[in-house]
């Protein structure tokens, strides 16, 4: 039994929710424009930009590539961030906040500087190995990991700050190993934080463009990179069509989960 939210919360929260959906009112119609540039259709609606998505296999290739990159980057960054945050929280090393500051550096640096930095790293790495390379998908995933890991660190640290230290102390005094304390005591309490960290990392990687534009050329074309190819030139309404498809997919997944939970419970 939870205390319910009040009417004021519901009002502000509800308005904010509507605000979040406002651009959809424009984006959905735009995806049906008969013109070849981003515009609201006037009278005539067309599915040509959806057809273009199907007829151009590059879009599917880019979606697949972005998925791969996003999943790898999110997994790496969640693991690294989780270990790091646990270390800080459990061991409380001296200079902990300074160490946290170092981990958050990629978030603090202006994105263009990070782009240049990661470009230099990948160019160097290309000479060392053949996996983590410039214009290769693993290289992009590693670069994305650098960019998103601070966000995972923050979210997981916030989750940890809500955990009651006493339960960990209790486990420790009963002689539990570090591994047991983490898996049996702490992790169950920050499940949601870890999941949020993963999701946030994935989404940030999925949408990353500033760095990607600079560390890819003609092979590792992620979805945003494909959308942005025309940065100074033409913006293809296929961009809107892709967004609408993704939104439909997300809505489907969320609603599907709800239905699944309901049928399981019944």
């Amino acid at each position, binding site marked *: 039994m939870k205390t319910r*939210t009040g009417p004021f919360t519901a009002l502000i929260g509800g308005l904010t929710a509507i605000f979040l959906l406002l651009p959809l009112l424009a984006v959905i119609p735009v995806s049906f424009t008969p013109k070849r540039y981003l515009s609201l259709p006037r009278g005539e609606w067309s599915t040509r930009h959806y057809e273009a998505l199907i007829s151009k296999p590059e879009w599917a290739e880019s979606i697949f590539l972005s998925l791969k990159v996003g999943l790898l980057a999110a997994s790496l960054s969640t693991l690294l961030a989780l270990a790091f945050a646990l270390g800080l929280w459990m061991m409380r090393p001296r200079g902990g*906040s300074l160490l946290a500051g170092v981990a958050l550096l990629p978030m603090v640096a202006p994105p263009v500087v990070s782009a240049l930095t990661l470009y230099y790293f990948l160019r160097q790495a290309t000479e060392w190995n053949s996996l983590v390379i410039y214009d290769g998908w693993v290289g992009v995933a590693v670069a994305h990991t650098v960019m998103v890991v601070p966000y995972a660190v923050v979210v997981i640290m916030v989750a940890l700050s809500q955990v009651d230290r006493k339960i960990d102390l209790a486990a420790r005094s009963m002689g539990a190993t570090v591994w047991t304390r983490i898996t049996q005591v702490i992790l169950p309490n920050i499940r949601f934080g870890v999941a949020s960290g993963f999701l946030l990392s994935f989404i940030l990687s999925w949408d990353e463009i500033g760095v990607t534009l600079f560390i890819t050329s003609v092979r590792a074309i992620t979805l945003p990179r494909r959308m942005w190819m025309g940065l100074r030139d033409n913006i293809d309404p296929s961009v809107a069509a892709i967004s609408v498809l993704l939104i439909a997919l997300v809505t489907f997944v969320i609603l599907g989960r709800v239905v699944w939970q309901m049928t399981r419970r019944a």
Partner: protein
Amino acid sequence: MSRTLLIAPLLLFLGVTYLVPLAGVLLQSVTVPEPGLQNYQEVLGDPLVWSVIWRTLRICLFVTVLATVLAYPLTMLWVRGRRPVQIVVELCIMIPFWLSVLSRTFGWLSMLSNRGLLNTWLKDLGIIDMSLTMVRNDFGVIVGMVHFLIPFAVFPLASAMRNMDERVLMAARGIGASRFRVFWQIFVPMTWGGIMGAALLVFVFSIGFYVVPTLLGGGRSVMIAELIYLRIFQIPDWGIAAALSALIMVAVGGFLVTIIRRTGVGSQ
């Protein structure tokens, strides 16, 4: 031992991929075009830099407060609302994530521009007779940024609210505290870590914004990220760009460490 095993991987990873090459980039602030601090002198003496820094700070602080405040009740609905409300709110939070920044800014342009949907509706309803200028100025930039950032503020807040001890609230209600008092004196303080985490995330994120201010600001709202972009790519002067970046990083980084230390996000 286990301390090193937990903390070291991330630091090692960042060291190789990021910190060393970054040092190389930033070092140029004291070596290009010749050794010395003249780049810093030039940056600090440049009125354009200062006006851009002030604009960036003003907009980012405003956006941070607005996004965090709006995200808070939204997160409450998501975490604590009735089941149908939760589902609807979850959709509202997740959907914007999948709109590319391009589609979003275009969406806002179509909503807010002079012949946009919003102006048309307001005129049809007879609320205004002249079009309001809502975009290609700071207002448009703020709307676009807040919209982008609210979902990011939701995550740390939700993290904090989910782990909250429900019994405290029940107890407070039980001894007859009003809803208002429970909220301000118990609920909010208990989620303080989440609020600071959210604000921090949003603020730092907003400093690096480039696309939204460029497109929604009508070319006038030059912010710091764009200025650095200019100095690196458009008219390269890497010494100056590095000096500017180093200053920003010191300022924002110092701010972050102070906040982490003061509020104890993570270390409690």
